[in-house]
């Protein structure tokens, strides 16, 4: 039988080459540039410089706190939403999934302006609250604070949690919960002793994913707080702004951001695989 062109070595190469070139040119090459710039350019001391800068530690701490709080709140909300969605008809669930996915299509800037228009000093919600005696100035200060920023982050982190957890919850054999219930376990007990332990790898994985996203996000933060907030992405932004660029330090900060994100994601994956093995 005559072999088709695509099953020959030439065919394989012609099929894979565009993908390889794209990956190499737009992912691996820029990463290498960042690595080289951070370690070699500017005298090769960019890491020493950021480690000696108190702003770096404040930024790192701010990023960790912001990412953790936004991820935790998103995880709780996303989990509860996914749990409720499991019980809906598939038609209604699909409509809801479409609505929930909308925030993912907006850029961070759009989300930030949306929040300003809603919760800012002259925002729709703020004005509504002023009718019941809430001070608009005090309330709008909230949206420009780190807590307000976490709240804005949740807007696009919750959909990610829902999309991660929903398939797992849909596949969960609910007869285990019925069995536990027949043995006398109440709802809370079923959830904490049966459901959550079993889907924990997916929960950890969802948390790690949204943590990494939040850790590297800067658009919303920039639009809401300018560069006033001490978080690493904004520190990085300040190093590549028109006034006083410092590319080696910016590259070193990029490596830190990348490393933390990769580390967190790897920890999640490691936890999931370890759990799987432990019960075999």
């Amino acid at each position, binding site marked *: 039988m005559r072999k088709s062109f695509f099953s020959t070595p030439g065919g394989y190469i012609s099929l894979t080459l565009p993908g390889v070139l794209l990956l190499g040119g737009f992912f691996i090459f820029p990463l290498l540039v960042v690595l080289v710039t951070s370690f070699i350019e500017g005298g090769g001391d960019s890491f020493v410089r950021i480690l000696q800068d108190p702003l770096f530690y404040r930024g790192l701490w701010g990023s960790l706190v912001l990412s953790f709080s936004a991820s935790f709140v998103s995880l709780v909300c996303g989990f509860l939403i996914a749990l409720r969605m499991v019980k809906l008809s598939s038609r209604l669930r699909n409509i809801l999934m479409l609505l929930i996915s909308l925030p993912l299509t907006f850029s961070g800037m759009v989300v930030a302006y949306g929040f300003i228009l809603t919760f800012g000093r002259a925002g729709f919600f703020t004005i509504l609250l002023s009718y019941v005696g809430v001070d608009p100035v005090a309330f709008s200060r909230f949206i420009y604070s780190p807590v307000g920023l976490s709240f804005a982050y949740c807007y696009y982190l919750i959909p990610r949690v829902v999309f991660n957890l929903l398939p797992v919850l849909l596949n969960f054999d609910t007869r285990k919960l019925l*069995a*536990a219930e*027949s*043995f*006398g376990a109440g709802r809370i007990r079923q959830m904490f002793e049966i459901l959550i*332990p079993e889907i924990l790898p997916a929960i950890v994985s969802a948390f790690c994913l949204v943590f990494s996203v939040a850790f590297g996000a800067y658009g919303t933060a920039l639009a809401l707080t300018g560069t006033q907030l001490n978080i690493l992405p904004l520190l990085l932004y300040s190093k590549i702004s028109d006034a006083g660029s410092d590319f080696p330090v910016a590259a070193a900060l990029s490596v830190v951001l990348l490393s933390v994100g990769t580390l967190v994601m790897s920890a999640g994956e490691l936890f999931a695989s370890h759990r799987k093995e432990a*019960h075999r």
Partner: protein
Amino acid sequence: MKISLQQITFTYPHTLYGVFDIDLEIQEGELLAVIGSSGSGKTTILKLIAGFEHPQKGTLLFGDRPVQVLPPSKRNLGVVFQSYALFPLMTALENVAYPLKVRGVRTEDRLARALEMLRRVGLEAFADRYPATLSGGQQQRVALARALVFQPNALLLDEPLSALDAKLRIEMRDEIRNLQRQNGITTIHVTHDQEEALSIADRVAFLKDGRLVQVDTPKNLYDHPKTIEVAKFVGRSNLIPVQVVDTDRIETPFGVLSCSTKGFSPGSSSTALIRPESILLYPSIEAAQSQHGTTVFPCKIIRDRFLGPVRRVDVEVKGYILEAETMWRGEIGACSIKRDSICLFLKTE
């Protein structure tokens, strides 16, 4: 504990499916099998008793106590699901101990009781194993042990053997029967396997389209089915259109048969049930006549299936095909039908 269902009706939201006007009493220590085809409502009955669904009408009594509004967690029932529903992150021992943990039994006591229960189902050596490392039969035993460890009021089994292979299924059904007898526990066993139901149940309930058609002992259900549906579902059957000749004879497409026609007037139409094993097969007409008198028919084999202990054959009798079963391995040339094995149904059924 006695369980009574009185005029229980339940339909699933936005559908016409459910169970209707169910009147059923399960005596203390009895094993009742519920059978029926898919969608007949047998699992729904189990869900209503367990409390996973609540009837829209009727009364459910545990002993003399109405329980239809009680949540499942307050009904004290041991439930075994088709998928076993074991908790994968708990060992076999932890799984069995779980109902005791929920009841607040001290750790040492509950582990000792769980281990004793595992010993009774022959799995003491597997106490530290996780469900994923156990075979289907072992998981089934763990699920049974878990459902029995807290001395529940009754045991509800939802097709617990359907995921097992044929040999293991037979072993396990004997084991279920033994455990049920040892514990003297009221048991409701839902299955689509009529052979399984007949072999272990004290009584069998047959459901069709959400309605209870017949509740009887396995022998009566098989020998004297109330309707053609029961006859078709329980065991294999030849259902033959007949006409009643007189009080002692019926006319079939292949000849006149001797049979009691009590309750049927001469000339009326009916359907006769003849079980395959009630058709006696002989090598020749002469051999048949020498043993069975005159009501014998010449026949010819159309299909012959060797099943090990028996042969299942389709024989043609005067152009009509009958299914028969026999242990006889030789030639087949004639058949006769036992008089007392023929069961008549009204034609309208």
